C-alpha cells in the first residue's frame, strides 16, 4: 500500500508498504531516517520513540497504516522543532536542539543507541514542563532504557537543558 504522512514538517510518501509493518520500519527503511533505533520491537526500550501528532509513542508499535495523514517528528527533526518553538531562525540554521547540546555537554551519550529516543522524550517533557523536578524527569524517561551508563549523566543533561531554557540561553 501507499502511505502519505508528514515527517519533520515535510510531506512524505512511501510505496509498497506492507500492511503489517511498523512506522519505525517505514521511517528507517523506506524514508531514510535511521535516527529512531530498532531494538526490542515490543515497546520495552523506548529507542524508537517519536512524536505522533505531538504525542510521544513507540514507533515500533504503530502500524504503518495508522500513521496515514498524520504528523511525525523524529530525532532528525528536533532541531527544527526547537527553532520553530522559539520562533526564531530559518530552517537548517541551528545544528542541534538545546536538549541535544545538553546531552553532549553533560556526557550523557555512550554507545548512543538509546539517545534518540531519550532526546525525543526529554524534549517533549521540557516543552510541557520547562522546570521539571527530578521525579518528573525520571517519570518522563521511565520508558527509555540505557544499558551503558546508568542514568545519572542523562539526568544531568536534562537538568542542564532545563536550566539553560529558563535562562533563555
Amino acid at each position: 500500500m501507499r502511505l502519505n504522512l508528514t515527517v519533520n514538517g515535510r510531506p512524505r510518501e512511501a510505496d509498497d508498504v506492507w500492511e503489517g509493518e511498523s512506522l519505525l520500519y517505514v521511517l528507517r527503511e523506506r524514508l531514510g531516517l535511521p535516527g529512531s533505533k530498532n531494538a526490542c520491537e515490543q515497546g520495552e526500550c523506548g529507542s524508537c520513540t517519536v512524536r505522533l501528532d505531538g504525542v510521544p509513542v513507540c514507533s515500533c508499535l504503530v502500524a504503518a497504516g495508522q500513521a496515514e495523514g498524520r504528523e511525525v517528528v523524529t530525532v532528525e527533526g528536533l532541531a527544527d522543532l526547537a527553532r520553530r518553538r522559539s520562533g526564531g531562525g530559518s530552517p537548517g540554521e541551528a545544528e542541534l536542539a538545546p536538549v541535544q547540546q545538553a546531552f553532549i555537554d553533560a556526557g550523557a551519550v555512550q554507545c548512543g543507541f538509546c539517545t534518540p529516543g531519550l532526546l525525543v522524550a526529554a524534549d517533549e517533557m521540557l516543552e510541557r514542563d520547562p522546570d521539571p523536578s527530578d521525579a518528573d524527569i525520571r517519570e518522563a524517561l521511565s520508558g527509555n532504557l540505557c544499558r551503558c551508563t546508568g542514568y545519572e549523566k542523562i539526568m544531568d543533561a536534562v537538568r542542564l537543558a532545563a536550566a539553560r531554557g529558563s535562562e533563555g540561553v
Partner: protein
Amino acid sequence: MDFLRPANWEEALAAKAEHPAAVPIAGGTDVMVEINFDHRRPGHLMDLNRIAELGEWEVGEDSVRLGASVPYARIMERLRAELPGLALASHTVASPQIRNRGGVGGNLGTASPAGDAHPALLAAGAEVEAESVRGTRRIPIDAFYTGVKRNALAPDELIRAVHIKKAAGPQQFSKVGTRNAMVIAVCAFGLALHPDTRTVRTGIGSAAPTPVRALAAEEFLTAALEEGGFWDNGKIITPSLAKRFADLCAGACNPIDDVRGTAEYRRHAVGVMARRTLTWTWESYRDARRPTEGAA
C-alpha cells in the same frame, strides 16, 4: 494482509461482520508486538484510530462511559476523581509512550490475566458495551473473562465502550513487579469501598487463569463492616478482621509458577496487598468523615 480503515463505527461493524477474523488495532501495544515477532499474521488488520468517538468519554450520574480507545494517560489525568482505582492502575501501565497509546478496550480484547485495568474494573463494577451488526449488548465484567486470554466477545463483535460505576468511596490498586515502570504484574490487587451500598468489591490480577474477584472475602468483609457498625462509627479496622480478609483474598487465587514468580509467592503477595489496600481505603473513608464530625 489487508489493512482495513473504517472511517466510522458503522463501517467498523460492517467490516467485522464481513471479516470476523479481522484483528482490531487501536494503540497497537499488544497487536504490534505479536506481528513484529511473527506470532500472528492476521488476514485483516482493522485500524480503529480513525473513529474519534472511541477516544471520548462521558461522565453520567452513576457511571462513566469510557470509549474503548481512551488512552491510559488520559484516564490518569482526567478521570482520577470518578475512577480513582482505574486511574491508579493506568499509572502503573508500562511507560508514558505506552500509556499515550494503549487503552482499556485493548486490555479487555487481549484479556490477559495480567492486564492492569482488570482488577480496577472488577472492584469498581463495570459492564462492557459490545456491539455487532446484530445489535448491542452489555456484558457484566464478571462474565467477560472466560479463560486465559479469552473473553465473552462473539467473533463479529467489537468493544465500543466500558461503563464503569463512579466511585462512591475510596478505591486502591496495588501491583507487584520488579520496578515501577515497564513491568508486567507478578500479581495485582484492586479494592473499592462502596459506602452507598455498604459493600466492598475486589479484583485480583495475574493470580488465576483470568482476572477474578475474591467473592468470599468480599462477603466476609461486607458482613463484618455491617455487624460492627463500621460504616457509621468509622472505627479502625481491627488487625484480626484485616487478616481474615487478606487470607480469604489469598484463598481466591489459583496461581501458577512461572518466570515472574511462584504460585506460593503470588498467593502470599495478594494477601499482603489485600491487607494494605484495605487499610489505605478505610483510612481514606475515615478521613473523609472527619470534617463532618468536626462541624457537628
